[in-house]
């Protein structure tokens, strides 16, 4: 298998998702479905995604066929600088945009398609091999998950030590995650978005309320 340019496919997929979101949104708003306001959101999100994805990015090697009239949009997209150039940010943006549309039936297909586009953008950023100290994204994600689990287990241990078992089981899972120390969350964010950070994130001592 040769060099597959995933970002090219992600761009096509995101553009198609934008159109699907707009269509779903129009159907829901025009038909005044229950919770149709999600449909209105979906139209706006779809238009934004289409405008962002319309200019086709330049290929790594080979010639790029520009879309008709894309130079006008390119000028606008370029104004946002690194926010639009960076595919990590695009991936996260698409994922976040797709979530509200998932609450309405008419736009659920748009949600799924945009989430897939986000996944493909993320996949396109996986570096092909170890470059110096830079770790592959999958490994970094795994480290983050382990960090979070380790922190939670340390926290849970402390809670259990100072309270009865029944109190621990009463705690809702969502509550636990919000109690992770903010420094740990920052470290996770740094680990996720940094390239070639030489040091693995270290475990801070967990504090309990």
């Amino acid at each position, binding site marked *: 298998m*040769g060099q*597959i340019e995933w970002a*090219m*496919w992600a761009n096509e*997929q995101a553009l*198609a998702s934008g159109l699907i979101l707009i269509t779903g949104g129009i159907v829901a708003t025009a*038909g005044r479905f229950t919770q149709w306001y999600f449909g209105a959101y979906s139209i706006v999100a779809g238009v934004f995604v289409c405008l962002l994805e319309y200019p086709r990015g330049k290929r790594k090697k080979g010639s790029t066929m520009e879309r008709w009239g894309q130079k006008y949009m390119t000028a606008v997209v370029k104004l946002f600088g690194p926010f639009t150039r960076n595919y990590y940010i695009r991936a996260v943006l698409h994922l976040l945009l797709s979530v509200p549309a998932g*609450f309405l039936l008419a736009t659920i*297909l748009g949600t799924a398609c945009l989430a897939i586009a986000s996944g493909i953008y993320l996949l396109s950023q996986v570096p092909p091999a170890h470059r110096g100290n830079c770790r592959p994204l999958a490994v970094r994600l795994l480290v983050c998950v382990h960090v979070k689990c380790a922190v939670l287990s340390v926290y849970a241990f402390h809670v259990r030590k100072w309270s009865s078992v029944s109190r621990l089981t009463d705690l809702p899972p969502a509550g636990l995650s919000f109690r992770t120390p903010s420094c740990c969350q920052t470290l996770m964010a740094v680990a996720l978005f940094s390239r070639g950070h030489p040091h693995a994130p270290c475990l801070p001592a967990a504090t309990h309320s």
Partner: protein
Amino acid sequence: MMGCWILNEGLSTILVLLWLGINFYLFIDTFYWYEEEESFHYTRVILGSTLAWARASALCLNFNCMLILIPISRNLISFIRGTSICCRGPWRRQLDKNLKFHKLVAYGIAVNATIHIVAHFFNLERYHWSQSEEAQGLLAALSKLGNTPNESYLNPVRTFPKNTTTELLRTIAGVTGLVISLALVLIMTSSTEFIRQASYELFWYTHHVFIIFFLSLAIHGTGRIVRGQTQDSLSLHNITFCRDRYAEWQTVAQCPVPQFSGKEPSAWKWILGPVVLYACERIIRFWRFQQEVVITKVVSHPSGVLELHMKKRGFKMAPGQYILVQCPAISSLEWHPFTLTSAPQEDFFSVHIRAAGDWTAALLEAFGAEGQVLQEPWSLPRLAVDGPFGTALTDVFHYPVCVCVAAGIGVTPFAALLKSIWYKCSEAQTPLKLSKVYFYWICRDARAFEWFADLLLSLETRMSEQGKTHFLSYHIFLTGWDENQAVHIALHWDENTDVITGLKQKTFYGRPNWNNEFKQIAYNHPSSSIGVFFCGPKALSRTLQKMCRLYSSADPRGVHFFYNKESF
């Protein structure tokens, strides 16, 4: 000949209109059936006409999903091409447009899928709303049916959940529908022309999601949520009388409670045949892959071109056809097309492969084209060959005069043709109808096609040996050159042979003046039918068509140019 030529041009349009007509007929017929059918009267009370929109588009989807697998069954198409049908030329040419038809049907599926999905969104929303407390009268009564043991339900949404999405995901039709739509979107986004050119592998691998598409389609209707009144119930329950007396359904004998049943799934009936056919097609491809291909000669040409001579049992070809080649050592899933460059009269078949991408570059490396070291025959990688496919260029032999125009890489089918013409000329038994061939080769850089220049040189020599020096008249046009070359050419202008190609006929620089060329040919052959064959970019194809029309005389006895629109 003339009748076939008219049929040529119009047949594609007729077939497309036929397909469109069948689609419209199926849509409109089903739409009116669901709008007027008695057994769906109560369903229409809840859903309105979106039921008919959904069902009509569903039938069109069934029809198009049935059609879509047929144009890509290459072996079936070759088989059909082998059988003789009247007016073979135009029908055979339609078989060459199989990929265009596949894309057209795909667009049809996309359009119908959109209508179907939107209509069902409305349907689900209406079913959902009729279970709410705000629903009154007949609507509420119909939705409540099925709550007691003796009743069959009409509304597949039985309770009033907050979210219709959960209702969708509870039904087989909903889940499979979502899976099918996602599969369709993924297939279409990875099949755009840009992606196909940028990364063929991505397009090819993602396209295999069609397996999930067809599996989900087969089970999409098994939930039977499209419900209509049963025939027994219709005979007992008079709709016109009873529909306003819904409060008395339980009590009045004339209006027993209506019974409903789901429509049985029908998609599998439409797609079973083509799926089985396509499965056979893949099995045949696999079997052909297993067949032994013996590589008899490997020639490495100076400008990154590899010539492979191969033999395979039972292989029969015609000039202009192509084969698909797979090299398991490089990739076990990729088959790449190459035009055959050998004549059918030779006891081997050959292809010329130029390094133009990942796969071809890897192939050249595997065959030792890069290095100076000679490869041993047993160390060469194994190849699998499928084919030959494509329309043969044998129409050339039906005309007394032929004009063949090749642009750039389009020269490859003409290699096979010219060799084949030479062999036929040499066979003294049957005199050929064809008496003169004009060959135009337009090329930016002749270096990549040195092997073709060699072929022309050998043909030139052999023709003069046979005393048929004037049979083949070729003109090479070089459209790109640098200063050094220009100076070199100018210095050697007066020599006998051409300084670039070494041929007796001189190379021209720049593009040909087609008006002059066609005028000269028409003057030389005032009352002949002249066949024009072209392989290359579309712009030039349009120019040549225009020339053919311009220089064909109105007089039926005069010169006529017949442009053969081919895609090689």
